[in-house]
């Protein structure tokens, strides 16, 4: 029996159907669903939303209070993170860096291993890993659970609701504000969080701009510069506030750059319609505190930390190697710093900073120790530093080292803060961008665009400052 194929039959039947039959199919499903739901659900009382939810929304999306609470909550999260992490970080640093490093040296001394082996493994790999753990673990162990609690409570969609108009004007998706905030903890996590955005175009915008959220690894640089260079300009009573304000200014600048770059991308290479937007404001749910602490510790903190450690170990080995391998009367590091110095000068930075950013691509956390170490070993040795060994100094000593041995000025500090905001993402983030986009082109854009902006901005500041005679 020779009958038409099923496909042909379908095509024939389709031809007989009215134009809007697809919508009709969807609608009959929805109508069925509505009918079943109506007969299955009984509403007691007045219905609608619980009073508590309405009251909370009234405050959290209020024209004045909404923004005030938003600012306050995020300030509180960062404040808890920064101040709460200081103690444990110091403790870990004493344990792992001061004590652990010395003990390890004492332990392997009887083995009489060649000096380059102990140097590479203990002074390079171990020390930088210990540094990253000490600097990163406490803030992340505080930041992620706090952020997760806000998320579980249902607050984040309200933030997206409050800020949507700004992102809409920038041609981006309203949910970009959520991945942006996630980026303040870790850019790699922020890039992954862009999955909540449906359209590829808007998701790419969110991915490319996520790096303008200052991640945990960069806060220490900003706080240190703010404290020893900018806070120091103010009378002692105000020093703390001025330092904090300078850090907040840079963070705010990051939001501005995010919106500007989103706007630029959505009007040029990523032009297109804004996708179907729908944001649900879910009911508030009391967070399960203990479970949240546990899951966010396991799921986010340790995962991010593991990646950072995996990245920091080779970086430490590299720093040690370039500081200790001598070629033509100087270490490789010295040659590199000399080569980078002219560009550094142009950007109001110096060769040491640029080299530090090169070796610290794996983990931004080691920027400051690397800068200190390179400055000390290449310049006059003030605190008895060994070649290629990272060390921790107090803020006063750090100031002395940078100004006396490194020749730093206020311009260097300001530009380092700007460069800390505007430079390539760390390698973990770059890998995450690649695995999320599977596009070499967009990974390259996300990597190179921030650094181009960084060169532009720091170069401009340096030129203006020099022309005006400030530096």
């Amino acid at each position, binding site marked *: 029996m020779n009958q038409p194929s099923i496909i042909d039959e379908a095509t024939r039947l389709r031809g007989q159907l009215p134009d809007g039959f697809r919508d*009709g199919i969807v609608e009959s499903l929805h109508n069925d669903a509505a009918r079943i739901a*109506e007969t299955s659900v*009984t509403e007691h009382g007045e219905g609608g939303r619980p009073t508590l939810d309405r009251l909370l929304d009234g405050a959290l999306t209020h024209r004045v209070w909404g923004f005030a609470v938003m600012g306050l909550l995020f300030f509180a999260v960062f404040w808890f993170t920064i101040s709460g992490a200081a103690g444990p970080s110091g403790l870990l640093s004493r344990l792992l860096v001061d004590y652990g490093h010395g003990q390890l040296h004492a332990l392997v001394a009887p083995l009489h291993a060649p000096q380059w082996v102990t140097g590479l493994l203990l002074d390079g790999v171990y020390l930088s890993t210990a540094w990253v753990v000490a600097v990163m673990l406490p803030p992340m162990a505080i930041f992620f659970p706090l952020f997760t609690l806000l998320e579980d409570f249902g607050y984040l969609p309200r933030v997206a609701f409050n800020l949507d108009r700004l992102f809409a004007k920038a041609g981006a998706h309203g949910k970009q504000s*959520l991945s942006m905030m996630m980026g303040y903890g870790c850019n790699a996590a922020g890039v992954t969080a862009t999955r909540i955005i449906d359209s590829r175009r808007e998701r790419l915008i969110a991915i490319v701009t996520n790096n303008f959220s200052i991640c945990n690894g960069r806060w220490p640089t900003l706080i240190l510069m703010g404290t020893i260079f900018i806070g120091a300009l103010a009378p002692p009573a105000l020093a703390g506030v001025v330092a904090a304000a300078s850090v907040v200014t840079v963070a705010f600048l990051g939001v501005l750059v995010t919106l500007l770059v989103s706007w630029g991308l959505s009007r040029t290479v990523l032009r297109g319609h804004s996708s179907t937007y729908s944001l649900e404001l879910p009911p508030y749910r009391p967070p399960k505190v203990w479970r949240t602490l546990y899951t966010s510790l396991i799921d986010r903190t340790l995962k991010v930390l593991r990646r950072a450690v995996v990245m920091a170990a080779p970086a430490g080995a590299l720093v040690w190697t370039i500081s200790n391998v001598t070629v033509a009367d100087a270490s490789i590091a010295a040659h590199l710093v000399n080569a980078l110095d002219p560009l550094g000068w142009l950007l109001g930075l110096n060769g040491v900073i640029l080299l530090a950013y090169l070796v610290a691509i794996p983990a931004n956390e080691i920027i400051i120790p690397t800068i200190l170490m390179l400055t000390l070993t290449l310049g006059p040795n003030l605190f008895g530093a060994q070649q290629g060994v990272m060390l921790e100094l107090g803020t006063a000593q750090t100031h002395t080292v940078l100004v006396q041995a490194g020749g730093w000025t206020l311009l260097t500090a300001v530009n380092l803060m700007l460069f800390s905001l505007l430079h390539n993402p760390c390698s973990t983030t770059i890998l995450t961008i690649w695995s999320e986009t599977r596009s070499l082109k967009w990974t390259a854009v996300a990597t190179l665009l921030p650094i181009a902006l960084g060169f532009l901005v720091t170069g401009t500041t340096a030129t203006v400052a020099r022309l005006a005679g400030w530096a």
Partner: protein
Amino acid sequence: MPHTELPTPSVNPAPPTDPVCGTCALNHASQLLSLGVDVSGHDHVVALAGNPNTGKSTVFNALTGLRQHVGNWPGKTVIGAEGGFGYRDRRYKLVDLPGTYSLLSTSEDEDVARDFLVFGRPDVTVVVVDATRLQRNLNLVLQILQITDRVVLALNLVDEARRHGLSVDERHLARELGVPVVPMAARSRQGVPDLLETVERVALGTIATRARPVHHGDVRTERAVSELAHRIQREYPELTNTRWIALRLLEGDPGIERAVTDGTLGRLAAPAASTESFTDRSGKTHS
């Protein structure tokens, strides 16, 4: 929907098939494998579907003991997680599908979820629905029921519904849908034992599920669907979801058209008994 027999329970007394049957066209394990699911060591495959933000991941965690982070914003699970759990000597593979509002193929997520249900043919599909948003959730349930009727409805967030002054008549709902309904509050682990029990009974076929067909208001559409479904039924008498396939073909769904022309549909229509189980009674794997 013209119903054939309910699929044979998967306690399969037949001797184990060839271990290299991953390439054999009749084995639905190979279909699962091609969708990226390793089924070795499991007696049944359970799919977990549902709208975004219904507590699907919480149910997943409650069943598997995994601690996948669950956020309170819609659309967290994009790439489905997999996990396993055991219940009364049987091992289950749980596949978390992306949270979607619908399966009408308007996004990549919807395609992933739909392909898994159609071509992966899970033994049981648990659809997690939010009791406080039943209407919107039922839309997805009705679509899933057109594909498979081996469904358990996990009516989640009943505690929250109570807080909103809503109560759901789950017996009426079960009657309307033709599948068992388990009320749950997964965040506080309420209803998990009931869900496990019901999943087992649907997997073993001791609960007969019988999904009700969706009729289309428009007479012409209804006639076309029936006619095409009839035609498909003649060609593949073992297929249980002919009306749904007819509907997709009428809409010109490229994925389903491909499945018809390249023979995938024919393989799905192979007798159910030989495809339902990929482990023998002792639970030894031979995939």
